[in-house]
């Protein structure tokens, strides 16, 4: 370890490793630190990710792919099933990964690109001078260090403190976080070709249950409910009920717990000398809770912006605004659309969810896009989904129809 770098990245999840890799490839001197002794372990993920999206950033390797699926099946409370292709299923469906191996492979890519990597190294604070972040305070094997950098990137996940230390309040309200429990189950009868989602206010209040195939009769069977539904009843208890009912003979060989931000975009993700990436920037999808791809996308972007800011010798918040603008224009737009959908769908009763599912019966969703699916739902259930109308604005092929609807 040196005492100064161009960029220090805190946290070696997918967001941090992508940041470090891109920054190193841009020629920067990079340090990537991770507080755990083993990158990627314990896992806090259902491990689903869209193949095509992922391929933009890493060459697929069978070492970290557990299963490949064709799409998803969504079950409404009365059991009505909607089948969706991979393209329609969004950023969470395609491969089911082995995150322990995947996260390590990404960190290795950062290392091969030239970044220095340190495990069992925890950031405990920031060095702040004249209103600029100038590095981190860190602890490694019982010793304390001050390490300086032109830019610090906080990719420290759901439990992020880096933003808070720089004055960006990233605290989540209970309703803005999805609290999850999952078993890796074996010896169960599942559909190996589809990721399955089960909806219902009884089985998963303000949330859903997922079954993601992991190959060889194994699957990640998990539940996420929003924090405001948690307390009297816990994610793990609801999961046990579901497993009891659906897979009485199955065996759990791993337990995963975790929280995902579902708050939508936050106000600010940059400060003087600082950027936030991934779950630390609350960039996960508010409907699905998916954040693997989003964190990688944002990490890559942050790495590029770090390089351009350092080249122009200006790491002020105004200069780093380039990152803020770019991620908001693409990721942020999708996240905000999901937020509108989340806000409407989480208020639906089981009866209303069934009504929506029935309205899609017989409709071929084969080549639909997500927005096309929502549009189909909206058209058939205008009264129920009137709140969604804002998300169709600006989308060319349905724009005309929408303005006619809204006007009528």
């Amino acid at each position, binding site marked *: 370890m040196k005492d100064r770098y161009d960029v220090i990245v805190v946290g070696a999840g997918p967001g941090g490793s992508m940041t470090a890799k891109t920054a190193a490839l841009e020629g920067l001197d990079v340090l990537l630190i991770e507080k755990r002794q083993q990158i990627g372990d314990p896992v806090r993920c259902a491990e689903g990710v869209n193949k095509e999206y992922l391929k933009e950033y890493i060459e697929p390797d069978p070492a970290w792919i557990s299963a490949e699926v064709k799409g998803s099946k969504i079950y409404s409370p009365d059991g009505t099933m909607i089948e969706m292709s991979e393209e329609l299923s969004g950023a969470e469906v395609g491969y089911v990964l082995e995150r322990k191996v995947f996260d390590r492979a990404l960190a290795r890519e950062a290392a091969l690109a030239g970044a220095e990597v340190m495990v069992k190294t925890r950031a405990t604070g920031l060095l702040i001078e004249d209103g600029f972040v100038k590095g981190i305070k860190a602890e490694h094997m019982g010793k304390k260090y001050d390490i300086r950098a032109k830019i610090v990137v906080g990719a420290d996940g*759901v*439990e992020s403190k880096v933003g808070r230390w720089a004055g960006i309040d990233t605290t989540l309200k*209970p309703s803005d*976080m999805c*609290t999850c429990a999952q078993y890796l189950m074996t010896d169960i009868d599942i559909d190996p070709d589809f990721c399955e989602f089960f909806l219902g206010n009884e089985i998963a209040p303000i949330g859903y249950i997922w079954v993601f195939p992991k190959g060889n009769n194994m699957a990640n069977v998990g539940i996420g409910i929003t924090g405001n539904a*948690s307390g009297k009843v816990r994610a793990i208890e609801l999961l046990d009920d579901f497993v009891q009912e659906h897979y009485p003979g199955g065996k759990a060989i791993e337990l995963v717990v975790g929280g995902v931000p579902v708050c939508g975009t936050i106000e600010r993700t940059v400060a003087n000398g600082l950027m936030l990436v991934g779950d630390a920037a609350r960039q996960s999808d508010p409907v699905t809770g998916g954040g693997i791809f989003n964190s990688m996308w944002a990490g890559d972007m942050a790495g590029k912006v770090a390089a351009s800011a350092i080249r122009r010798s200006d790491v002020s918040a105004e200069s780093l605004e380039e990152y803020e603008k770019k991620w908001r224009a693409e990721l942020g737009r999708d996240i905000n659309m999901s937020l509108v959908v989340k806000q409407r769908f989480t208020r639906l009763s089981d009866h209303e969810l069934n009504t929506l599912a029935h309205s899609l019966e017989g409709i071929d969703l084969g080549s639909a896009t997500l927005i096309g699916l929502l549009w189909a739902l909206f058209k058939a259930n205008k009264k129920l989904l009137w709140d969604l109308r804002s998300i169709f604005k600006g989308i060319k092929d349905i724009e005309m129809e929408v303005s006619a609807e809204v006007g009528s």
Partner: protein
Amino acid sequence: MTVSVDRFKCGYCGACVSVCPTGALELMETWIEVDGSCNDCGICAKICPVGALEVSK
């Protein structure tokens, strides 16, 4: 400070850390530490997926 962590239940996921309004919680590697800034609001205990936290008022 009256938050107690049942370390035999805790899955060290960090979810509680993200909702704590005072920043009193910290996920070390495999355990949660609570510092003196805790105001006993109870939010952490509410959202823990396994019920590992207890706040006694």
